[in-house]
C-alpha cells in the first residue's frame, strides 16, 4: 500500500465528480430536500419528525454512496481502466481506500449540508451534538462505499448493479428498527437485524437523539459500523484480480 497512490486515486475520483456538476448538485441538495418533505409530512408532530429525520440523516448517505460507488467501480471494470490500473504499481487496497476517501469526503459535505438544514431550517431537535450526527453519517457513507465496491464485483452491467440496492440496502433499512422496534420483531428477524451493520448506525443515531453526552453504546456502535466497512473493503480487495480469464 502506498499513501501517495491512495491520495492520487482519491484526488482523481473527486476530479471526476467535479466535472459532473449535476451529480454534485444532486448529492448535496437531494437529502436536504427529502428531509424537508418529511418535515411537511409530519407537520405538527415534532417528536415523530425528530425521530425519523435523525435516522434518515444516517440512511441517506449510506444508500446514495452505495449506489454511486457501485456504478463508478463497474465503469472502471467495463471501460478497461481497471485492467490497466492493475498493470501499474497501484495496489488493490490503494484503489479501494482511494474510493473510500474520496466518497467519504463527498459524504462529509453532503452530511454537513443535510444536518445543517435539518437543525437550522427544519428545527430538528436532539439531546446530543449535531457534530456526532455528521460523524455517524460519514462513517455510514464509507460503509455504503465499501459495500458498493464489493457488490460491483458481482455485476456485469449497470442494470445488475442497481439491482443490488434492493438486495443489500433495503433489508437493512427494513430491519434497522425504523419501521418496527427491534425488540418487537420475531426472534429470527431480530437475529438477522443484529447481523446487519445499518442496525448499529441507526442505534448510534438514536443514542445521539436521547443523550446529551456521547454514550458508550454510541461509540461501540460506531466502531461496529467502521469495522464492517473495513471488512467489506478487504472482501472487495479479494474480488479484484490482476489476472482474469
Amino acid at each position, binding site marked *: 500500500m502506498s499513501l501517495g497512490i491512495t491520495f*492520487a486515486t482519491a484526488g482523481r475520483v473527486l*476530479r471526476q465528480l467535479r466535472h459532473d456538476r449535476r451529480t454534485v448538485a444532486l448529492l448535496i441538495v437531494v437529502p436536504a430536500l427529502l428531509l424537508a418533505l418529511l418535515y411537511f409530512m409530519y407537520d405538527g408532530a415534532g417528536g415523530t419528525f425528530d425521530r425519523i429525520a435523525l435516522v434518515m440523516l444516517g440512511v441517506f448517505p449510506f444508500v446514495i454512496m452505495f449506489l454511486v460507488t457501485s456504478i463508478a467501480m463497474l465503469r472502471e471494470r467495463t*471501460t478497461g481502466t481497471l*485492467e490497466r490500473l492493475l498493470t*501499474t504499481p497501484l495496489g488493490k487496497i490503494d484503489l479501494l481506500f482511494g474510493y473510500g476517501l474520496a466518497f467519504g469526503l463527498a459524504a462529509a459535505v453532503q452530511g454537513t449540508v443535510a444536518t445543517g438544514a435539518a437543525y437550522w431550517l427544519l428545527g430538528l431537535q436532539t439531546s446530543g451534538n449535531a457534530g456526532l450526527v455528521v460523524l455517524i453519517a460519514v462513517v455510514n457513507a464509507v460503509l455504503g462505499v465499501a459495500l458498493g465496491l464489493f457488490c460491483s464485483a458481482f455485476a456485469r452491467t449497470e442494470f445488475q448493479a442497481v439491482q443490488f440496492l434492493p438486495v443489500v440496502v433495503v433489508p437493512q433499512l427494513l430491519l434497522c428498527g425504523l419501521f418496527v422496534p427491534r425488540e418487537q420483531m420475531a426472534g429470527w428477524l431480530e437475529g438477522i437485524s443484529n447481523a446487519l451493520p445499518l442496525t448499529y448506525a441507526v442505534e448510534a443515531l438514536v443514542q445521539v437523539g436521547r443523550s446529551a453526552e456521547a454514550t458508550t453504546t454510541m461509540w461501540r456502535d460506531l466502531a461496529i459500523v467502521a469495522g464492517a466497512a473495513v471488512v467489506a473493503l478487504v472482501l472487495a480487495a479479494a474480488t479484484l484480480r*490482476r*489476472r482474469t480469464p
Partner: protein
Amino acid sequence: MGTAIEVRDLVVERGRREVLHGITCTIPSGSVTGLLGPSGSGKTTLIRAVVGVQIVKSGEVTVLGRPAGSAPLRSQVGYVTQAPSVYADLSVRENARYFAALLGLGAAEADRAIADVGLADARGQLVGNLSGGQRSRASLACAMIGEPKLLVLDEPTVGQDPVLRADLWARFHELADAGTTLLVSSHVMDEAGRCDRLLLIREGRLIGDDTPAAIRTAAGTDDLEEAFLRLIREREQVTA
C-alpha cells in the same frame, strides 16, 4: 541485443475454448515488433499474457527477465488496451497526471507525454469530448509516461489520420532507438512494413516470425499482404 520478451509454449483458454495453441517466440529489446493478424486471431490474448493480466493454461512468458506481471515490472511496462482505457470524465491532462502519480512522477512528465502524442492543444479538454483518434492518443500518452522499458500497444493507430499515423510510427522508432522495446499489434498490413520484426498470427498459431524483408524473401513477393496469404496457404498444404 538482449531479449525483452520470451514466450514459451503458451496455451491460453478463454471461455472454455483454446485461443492460443502453444506460442513460442522471442522479442529482442530496443526494437519495434509488429503483431499482425486478423481480428479474432489471438493478438489481444497474447498481449494480455505479456502484460500479465491473462490467466494462462500452460507455458511461460518472461518479460525483462521476470515472469510476466510480477510486481517489479509494473513500473517498467506501459500498456495500451484496444479500447482507450482512460477516464472520459477527466481532461487529457488530469488523466496523464493521475497515471504519472501512480509511478511517483509529476506534472512535467505528464505534459511531455501529452506533447509527444500531439495532444498539447487539447490537453484541457475532457477525453469524452475528443474524437476517437484523439482518445486513443490520450490513452497512449498515459502509457508513455516515465519512459517504460517495454511498451505494449494493442492497435494504437486505429482511426488516426495518415499524417499522425506516420508521426506516431516515427515516435515509436525514436523510442526503440533509445532502447525501449515496443510490441505493437495491428490488423492493417500496410503497417507491417514499418516494423523491425513481425509476428504473424492466425487462429491462435504463429505462422511467421522474422523481419519484414526476410518474410518478403521467403514468400517470394514484395507485398506483405500477399506474403501473409502465401504463408497461410503453405501451412494449409502442409497440414492437409
